[in-house]
């Protein structure tokens, strides 16, 4: 909407509302945080929408269609446009007030996914009528160009630090799909850390894509899609948390350990790997919080206890919720060892192409039917997996 559109807009406004907005009300919304759009056909304005975006919340302030043009889907087109616009601005929820008696509008909003979230008493001054507060939460998967800030090699592991364009909340256990330079598919990697626009990934160069990723240089931009999948749920009641990390499995359990410890939940973290080179000192330091008890296990005995993580599991599982991430064999063993009444969450890996549930590549197939690791996981409760790993 531009200033020269106002005469036409004001005419529609007057014909639509008992207490129409005046010229100034519109003028204010023509610049951020206001955003105003018109629906135009052959140079004629048939409708418009006005909204404000503050941080990650959108507020639809006004939406109207000229009376002769109603019931043609122009309202839904405008609304759809606003929703898309919000998505691109990284908005996570869109809100609006509507007169309780305006059934046509309410049904349009409901059709577009809005739900009634509350009521504002006597909101409209002309009639004293209540307003319904309706809200729509928008999916938060975001595609961004992330800038490489640092590539820190630590023995066989590497931490990739990238700066994002905006702050994004995440849950430990969620992952990203990240461009692997020169490769046809993105790579799934757990979110190792994500704070104030700084995304950290912990990876091990094992193949073409991960090797390309540890060879990126600072300043380079990489496409990332995040946060994907479901994270680890918090333990119920007064449970302690047992974290079982096999090798790279630490990547998703590390942020979980920190989150649990910040909540004051006691954490016992068993981390098993081939040898001591897998335990870089900077990572160990960060795990020395008082509510985290860390036990290291190596196959060659070069650090901590010698053996496999599955050989040193405790016998006592009372009041424990278990979180496990590691190679498939380890997960299978763990599920067979831990008594069935104990709640166990495992994070699984499968090859992925889209990461968002669109291609059906990442199937976890069991007697109960198929699940997608990228959408229904990667964190699953033991009951959901059933016989799928065997």
């Amino acid at each position: 909407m531009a200033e020269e559109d106002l005469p036409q807009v004001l005419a529609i406004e007057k014909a639509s509302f008992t207490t129409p907005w005046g010229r100034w009300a519109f003028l204010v919304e023509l610049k951020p945080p206001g955003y105003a759009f018109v629906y135009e056909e052959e140079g004629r304005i048939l409708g418009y929408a006005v909204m404000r975006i503050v941080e990650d919340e959108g507020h639809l302030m006004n939406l109207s269609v000229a009376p002769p043009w109603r019931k043609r889907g122009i309202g839904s087109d405008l609304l759809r446009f606003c929703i898309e616009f919000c998505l691109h601005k990284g908005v996570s929820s869109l809100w609006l007030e509507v007169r309780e008696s305006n059934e046509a509008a309410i049904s349009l909003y409901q059709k577009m996914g809005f739900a009634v979230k509350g009521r504002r008493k006597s909101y409209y001054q002309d009639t004293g009528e209540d307003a319904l507060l309706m809200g729509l939460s928008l999916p938060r998967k975001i595609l961004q160009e992330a800038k490489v800030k640092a590539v820190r090699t630590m023995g066989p592991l590497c931490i990739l630090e990238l700066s994002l364009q905006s702050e994004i909340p995440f849950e430990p256990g969620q992952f990203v799909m990240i461009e692997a330079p020169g490769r046809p598919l993105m790579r799934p990697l757990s979110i190792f850390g994500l704070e104030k626009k700084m995304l950290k990934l912990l990876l091990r160069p094992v193949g073409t894509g991960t090797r390309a990723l540890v060879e990126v240089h600072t300043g380079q931009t990489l496409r990332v899609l995040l946060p994907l999948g479901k994270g680890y749920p918090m333990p119920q009641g007064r449970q302690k948390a047992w974290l079982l990390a096999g090798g790279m499995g630490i990547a998703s359990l590390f942020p979980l350990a920190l989150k649990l410890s910040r909540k004051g939940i006691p954490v016992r973290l068993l981390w098993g790997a081939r040898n001591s080179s897998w335990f870089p000192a900077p990572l160990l330091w960060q795990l020395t919080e008082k509510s985290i008890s860390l036990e290291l296990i190596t196959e060659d005995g070069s650090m901590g206890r010698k053996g496999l993580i599955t050989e040193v599991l405790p016998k006592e599982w009372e009041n424990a919720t278990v979180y496990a991430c590691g190679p498939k064999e380890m997960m299978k063993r763990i599920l067979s060892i831990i008594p069935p009444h104990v709640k166990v969450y495992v994070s699984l890996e499968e090859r992925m192409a889209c990461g968002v549930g669109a291609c059906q590549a990442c199937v976890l197939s069991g007697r109960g039917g198929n699940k997608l690791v990228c959408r229904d996981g990667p964190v699953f409760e033991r009951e959901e997996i059933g016989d799928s790993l065997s």
Partner: protein
Amino acid sequence: MTPCLETHIGSLRLKTPLMPASGTFGYGDEYLGIISYEPLGAIVTKSLSLKPKRGNPPPRIHELPCGMLNSIGLENVGIKRFLEEKLPRLSELGLPVVVSIFGESEEEFLRVGESLKGAPSVSALEVNLSCPNVRKGGAAFGADPERVFHIIDNLKERVDLPLWAKLPPDPFHILEIAEAAQKAGAHALTLVNTLPAMAMDIQRGRPVLGGITGGLSGPALMPVALKMVYEVTRKLKIPVVAAGGISRWEDAMAFLLAGASALQIGTALFSNPRVFSEVHEGILRFMRERGMTTIEDLRGKAHEVEDHPL
């Protein structure tokens, strides 16, 4: 003036020639909020069969230097759940919906097609005669001109929706098969599906894919698809929707020059979900620079070059 990208597939008008390739865009709403749907002219669904299908065991994909293999095996929710749960959401996108249908028998194709009769906002059916990842039906049908004729002919009689026949990348027999589809009354051809292929896990001494063999897609497939589109549109009147390795606007342009009326993008979406916007902008920029105003200024222009006499 902004060039107009509107294109027509028979009587169906699309505001742009771009759409996702079946099977790479789920049931249409998976990418909502991640990418803009503005550059799309239509949505194409995953192929649907009569009953839900479990598909093949993992691994279902394998990356190659210049593309990928997949052996999804047509896992889908089945036509009933699609109509109940997926289509209503799809209809709200405000884009024409092309439903891809699949059958293990001619009968199944008909029954899936019939259940879509009168379904709201379905603009066309893409008849998947070319999936390399299923034992029955699939590419075996698309390789046989008589079968193709039969399936399209029967569907046409019973289902009042435009039919697009999606064919396998068989450059040697494509004309014959395409002609059969045209004769049966298909409104368009989608060229091409993936090429049957496989990969070997030499460490374990067995094929990589859980489905043993799979289908090749991505840039490796593009030159083959391009030649097929060129050849078919030169010889036949039927509109062609091109698919196969499109990942940049230059690729899209190549298919338009070769004679395609619309373009599908699949594999490229996985490495660059913004590919639709980039291709859209690229085509517009190119047309603007050369003073072109409609897609027709481009479509099939390469046909004007004389064939080299052998």
